[in-house]
């Protein structure tokens, strides 16, 4: 990329779609000049040619400057490519359920599809069958370090079974963790040293909060160009470039990613991340519970059988039927997947709250930006004030494949205005007392902002549809009604100062009664979300659907409540 100063291409090969961009030098810096996506299976060259052709038609001068005016001239561009693939499978085995759970969590966070087996009280034949499962490419056997009283008597059995499996399938990668991982110890001695599959000694699941084991298992998963690993790396750089705490929430066909990175001056940022397969749009082993969760977010009056059939269609052809009801179904499935992603990564909730949350992944591409903002607010219910963005061009992951930290930082700094679509900001307090106004909010222009860029807010009823008003008032006031969702039209590029005066102390990231905070605008404006934390929705499906539809209608033009 550095060798060609004019233009380069990025390609994100997903399991459902392929996304590509053209990034060119304009005005002395890298700018995103074209972006698009196609169903998986379409050759990236064809997609890049489409982007080139469209650029040449829309801005011939820029195309000429970038030497992209001729047919086929995008084919030889330098490329940053990353790919995601269906998760490989791993059997995780431990003496007891207590030891098994953190091992399974570490393997899932590392992006493996996991089959967990506890030896205690289990049928040995079932354990052996699971260990030798034809789809499993690795086995993780672990014990506490030192082994607990409930597992000591079972460890010889465990080691023998795993060693026998490795003897049946010599190519199987075997990871011995914690108390089984003594170098040259009894367990390791059961494995032939010259078999084709590796025997890896790993730290215990409890060591370092599970992070060292997760990193080791991620390394075994392979693929240097893995899209989720690259996206996590780019998250760290994004935090450095924007000088903010950033959290990226990605939902894909084969899995999801939650990556969080902080920032401190002069320090390189490194993201903590997890990529559970359970957060896939339609996870493997789809059950009735998964179906119920999706139906719970669905704003369409479809019966259960019909929803199941539509989801099966989505699984077979994830790029098809993306308009109309198909878009609403996707966004409902994406909300459910986001819930699973957050549930699978509770440790992230103990990190400092992010200042910017980024939605990434193909399912969001069908929804308008304000609807994506609402989906994030619906599911990511961490109290605080934060900006929302979307990796609209799927540019972050390919940029994360740049090995050199400085070069990656330079390129992303150039592209900082193009990387994300600003969805808006969300104000999400918790601890409001229902049944009476919680206080008032004043919205005024930020220092340096013009009053004309500051449309006013309007009030909405409790648990009713969100309301919005537009106008040139420099300062406006809003009564804070618990249970309501208020929209303030704050366009992209504008900033405003919120002064929140609550009657009682609330949790807004910090516990306070009076808060003044600067927020940025976006396509979804400012969401003042006074609904419950966590969000409580009616049990009855019809009422629930009506409420979700009412919230969504204001943010998704073209979809009726």
């Amino acid at each position: 990329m550095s060798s060609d100063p004019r233009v380069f291409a990025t390609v994100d090969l997903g399991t459902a779609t392929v996304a590509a961009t053209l990034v060119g030098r304009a005005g002395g810096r890298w700018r995103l000049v074209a972006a698009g996506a196609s169903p998986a299976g379409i050759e990236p060259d064809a997609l890049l040619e489409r982007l080139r052709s469209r650029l040449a038609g829309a801005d011939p001068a820029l195309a000429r400057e970038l030497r992209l005016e001729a047919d086929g001239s995008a084919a030889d561009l330098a490329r940053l490519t990353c790919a995601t693939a269906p998760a490989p499978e791993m059997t995780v085995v431990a003496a007891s359920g207590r030891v098994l759970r953190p091992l399974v969590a570490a393997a899932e966070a590392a992006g493996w599809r996991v089959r967990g087996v506890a030896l205690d009280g289990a049928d040995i034949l079932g354990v052996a069958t699971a260990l030798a499962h034809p789809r499993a490419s690795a086995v993780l056997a672990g014990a506490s370090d030192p082994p607990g009283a409930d597992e000591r008597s079972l460890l010889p059995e465990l080691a023998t079974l795993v060693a026998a499996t490795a003897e049946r399938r010599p190519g199987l990668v075997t990871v011995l963790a914690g108390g089984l991982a003594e170098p040259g110890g009894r367990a390791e001695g059961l494995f032939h040293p010259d078999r084709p599959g590796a025997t890896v000694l790993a730290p215990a699941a409890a060591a370092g909060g599970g992070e060292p084991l997760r990193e080791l298992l991620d390394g075994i998963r392979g693929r240097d160009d893995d899209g989720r690993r690259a996206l996590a790396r780019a998250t760290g750089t994004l935090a450095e470039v924007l000088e903010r705490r950033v959290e990226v929430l990605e939902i894909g066909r084969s899995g999801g990613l939650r990556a969080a990175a902080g920032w401190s001056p002069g320090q390189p940022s490194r993201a903590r991340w997890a990529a559970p397969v359970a957060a896939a749009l339609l996870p493997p082993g789809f059950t009735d519970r998964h179906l119920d969760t999706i139906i719970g977010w669905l704003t369409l009056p479809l019966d259960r059988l019909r929803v199941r059939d539509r989801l099966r269609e989505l699984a077979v052809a994830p790029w098809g039927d993306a308009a109309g009801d198909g878009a609403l179904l996707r966004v409902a499935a994406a909300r459910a997947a986001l819930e699973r992603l957050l549930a699978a990564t509770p440790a992230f909730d103990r990190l400092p709250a992010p200042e910017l949350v980024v939605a990434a992944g193909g399912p969001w591409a069908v929804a308008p930006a304000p609807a994506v903002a609402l989906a994030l607010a619906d599911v990511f219910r961490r109290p605080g004030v934060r900006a929302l963005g979307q990796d609209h061009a799927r540019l972050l992951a390919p940029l994360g494949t740049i090995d050199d930290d400085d070069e990656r930082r330079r390129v992303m700094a150039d592209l900082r205005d193009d990387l994300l679509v600003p969805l808006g900001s969300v104000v999400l307090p918790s601890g409001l007392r229902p049944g009476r106004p919680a206080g008032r909010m004043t919205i005024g222009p930020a220092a340096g902002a013009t009053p004309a860029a500051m449309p006013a807010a309007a009030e909405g009823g409790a648990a009713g549809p969100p309301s919005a008003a537009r106008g040139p008032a420099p300062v406006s006031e809003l009564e804070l009604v618990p249970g309501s969702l208020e929209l303030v039209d704050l366009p992209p590029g504008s900033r405003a100062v919120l002064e929140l005066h609550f009657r009682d102390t609330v949790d807004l990231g910090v516990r306070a009664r009076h808060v003044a905070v600067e927020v940025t605008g976006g396509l979804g404006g400012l969401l003042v979300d006074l609904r419950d934390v966590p969000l409580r929705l009616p049990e009855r499906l019809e009422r629930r659907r009506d409420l979700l539809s009412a919230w969504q209608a204001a943010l998704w033009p073209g979809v009726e409540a």
Partner: protein
Amino acid sequence: MSDRTWLAQVPVRRLLERDLEARFPLPPGDRPLVEVGTTVSAGDPLLEHLRDRRIEQVEVRPGLEGAAAAPAPGSRWSLPAGRRQDPAREGELLSPMPGGRDRWRLVTGGHRVALASPVAGEVTEVRPGAEIRVRPAGPAVRGGFAAGSAARGRLELATDPFGELRPGGIDVGRAGSILVVGARIDAEALTRARAMGVCGIVVASLPGKELRDFQASERRQRAALHPAPPFGVLVLDGALRRPIPGPLTRLLEDHAGQPVSLLVDPPALVFEDADPEPALPEPAWVRIRSGPNAGAEGRVLGLAGPRRFAANVVLEAAWVSIDGEPPVDVPLGDLERFA
């Protein structure tokens, strides 16, 4: 963009695939009857499936009759001669007992059922305790999903591509066949087909309810002491009703009356004709896979660029003319062309 370039934006559905591998489970206790590199014909024994599997502890010392020279997981073992003959004390060594290499766990069971290969091809992998893989000799049509068991039979077209087969339309005259039944079928017709000796069903779509009902019935059948012969269902597209694609219908018509193999993992229909020449439609011929015109076929006239569709969704689209009518905008993701 040239014609070739813009057509490359339309997703391709391959009529025939030649690189798939059929997978047959081989859990601990099952005995492979083939080796890697073996060429098998359809009907050749592939493995022995052990029913009512259980584990017993046995003493396995080298030198004892019945024991392998060096006992290893996955090797066969039988009761030494001179002791009470117990046919059940024969099986596969699973793993040594902890603490000693002489006492082993043995996977044994009630009786064995031979499984014949439903497809002709070459064995590419035998993993004791895991699976056998066979690369079919002939090309295959890949489906969306499948249920039941791999089977082999004579290909018959029971309805037109838009049709639906009712239970009353199946009789014993169809025994031994793999029926192509058009747009959809219900669970009742599937179970009747199995009872009438039909070997398999190929259908464009199968709703989830029918699939679950059939799978429950199939589980009961497999658990019976004398299970029914293998019977599989191959679903070409998905769960929502649509006809079988025209080019695929012509391919199936060309092979009517010939033996074919229906695979479940991966879902596919394998022809025995080693090198059939499918009559491919013109390159611009497309089928609308999903959306309001699902199932329709026509000619793609060009790329329309980004277009706004229902629910305010903007998608890349193409102009498609159906039955010579003026072109309509169809999202690229809803189209498939054939190659």
